[in-house]
């Protein structure tokens, strides 16, 4: 069923009785040509592009829980492409371009809102670094503007410009950045994939891989054995657990990242604003809640909840940036599990096992990358070649030394 204003009008006349579930509750078949493990944003996007762009058929997406119940529902919904390094920026910029056409592509309202992202700088040195970053972005086809203090003041007069320790000197603005309704991304991709014949199989946990002579033959699941020669794993947060079933160790640690939402307020914050002196970022949802977050807790965790010291640290960052948020009440907070990779950048690549492909290591960057990650992973699955925007996101870069370390922090996942 295509969605349109006319359809809405028609259903209004018919008492809204014609709407149907947007994807089938598929039961697993005995075999598929392609199996995507993980029904999150990345897995569903992969299935969508594999079916729609690469014209493949007999595709299944296996999800342990339910669609939209993982990290695609546990993020802060920000989209941007303000990366520095050539290994990353083309993929994120490709992703932003896909976001811009996403709703038309999916025929689904994902509430893509390009309200801009502003990274504040607090020293001359930081301004120089932002100028360099902005130029790197522009060289990769993205947009970037360096703002001085007056321009920032005009956009966001409520910031604490005269903070004694961290005065605001200016900022790097990407106007095409913004926010997207995260659940709608999962639902839109699921609906589109389903309409292209993809079987979305929920409550179907993978319990093992069948590998013969170094090649994939199929996988064991909670709902029986499924034969297939190509498996794409997109389960960031749990990558190590799933890939361990294939005997692989990954350059990844799992860490918990907390996020917060305040009570609903009137429109207050234009776009996304990030504090440059600590780790704090904030935006306002369409319902009015302030959505914000900061650093990961910093120790291995699969608990989906963090601890109080990081809560305090995040709120202190918020108070330093905009003291007015001290008057807002915190409504809820939660934790999501990140694949923190050894250089802070993701992996979309083949593995040493024939027919087993891996997509993970997204650190904080997973949500914004959803469309391009799916596109590039579908390209890899369909053609066995890396997509042109993902040529450096290799699993063996830790062996060859071609790391993509935006922060220059080294092999210390909790510092990325």
């Amino acid at each position, binding site marked *: 069923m295509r969605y349109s204003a006319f359809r809405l009008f028609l259903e209004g006349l018919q008492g809204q009785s014609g709407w149907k579930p947007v994807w089938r509750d598929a039961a697993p078949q005995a075999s598929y040509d392609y199996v995507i493990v993980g029904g999150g944003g990345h897995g569903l996007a992969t299935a969508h592009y594999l079916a729609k762009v690469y014209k493949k058929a007999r595709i299944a997406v296996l999800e342990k829980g339910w669609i939209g119940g993982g990290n695609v529902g546990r993020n802060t919904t920000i989209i941007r492409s303000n990366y520095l390094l050539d290994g990353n920026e083309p993929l994120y910029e490709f992703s932003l371009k896909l976001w811009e056409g996403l709703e038309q592509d999916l025929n689904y309202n994902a509430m893509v809102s390009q309200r801009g992202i502003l990274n504040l700088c607090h020293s001359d040195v930081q301004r120089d670094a932002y100028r360099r970053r902005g130029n790197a972005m522009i060289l990769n086809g993205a947009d970037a503007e360096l703002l001085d203090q007056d321009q920032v003041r005009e956009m966001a007069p409520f910031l604490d410009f005269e903070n004694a320790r961290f005065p605001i000197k200016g900022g790097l603005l990407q106007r095409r950045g913004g926010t997207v309704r995260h659940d709608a991304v999962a639902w839109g991709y699921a609906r589109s994939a389903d309409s292209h014949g993809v079987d979305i199989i929920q409550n179907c946990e993978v319990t093992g891989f069948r590998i013969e002579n170094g090649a994939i033959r199929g996988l064991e699941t909670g709902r029986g054995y499924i034969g297939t020669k190509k498996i794409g794993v997109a389960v960031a947060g749990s990558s190590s657990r799933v890939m361990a079933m294939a005997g692989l160790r990954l*350059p990844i640690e*799992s860490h918990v990242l907390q996020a917060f939402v305040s009570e609903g307020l009137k429109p207050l914050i234009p776009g996304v604003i990030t504090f440059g002196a600590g780790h704090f970022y904030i935006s306002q949802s369409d319902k009015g809640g302030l959505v914000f977050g900061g650093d990961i807790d*910093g*120790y*291995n965790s699969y608990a989906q909840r963090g*601890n109080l*010291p990081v809560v305090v640290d995040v709120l202190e960052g918020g108070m330093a940036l905009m003291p007015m948020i001290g008057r807002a009440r915190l409504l809820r907070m939660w934790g999501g599990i990140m694949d923190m990779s050894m250089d802070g950048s993701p992996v979309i690549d083949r593995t040493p096992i024939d027919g087993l492909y891996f997509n993970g290591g997204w650190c904080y960057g997973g949500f914004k990358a959803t469309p391009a990650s799916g596109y590039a992973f579908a390209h890899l699955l369909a053609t066995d070649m890396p997509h042109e925007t993902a040529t450096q996101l290799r699993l063996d870069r*830790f062996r060859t030394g071609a790391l993509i370390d935006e922060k220059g922090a080294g092999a210390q996942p*909790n510092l990325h």
Partner: protein
Amino acid sequence: MIINHPLLGPRDSQEFVYLGDASLIDRPNAMAETALDDFHDYLYLRDNPAGSHKELWFHEQGDRSWLVVTRDVTTHEITDVELASDYAKRRGRDR
């Protein structure tokens, strides 16, 4: 989280810096034939289990000792704490 320091008693985890998997104690032999592979695995690859995890914490805001903490990473419950030097000696290192 409260880490029960073997010498100082219960301490807030905020006093510590986290390094990672305690397997970092088992530094490979640089003279071995397989040193290149060994160091790649040592530096970059992790088991990253969802369950009991032995990990290194440094008491930076305290007595500056290294500890090996055994913690369930699905619940954050700490089940065992010992000095990293004791742990390392048990694994055949001289310090």
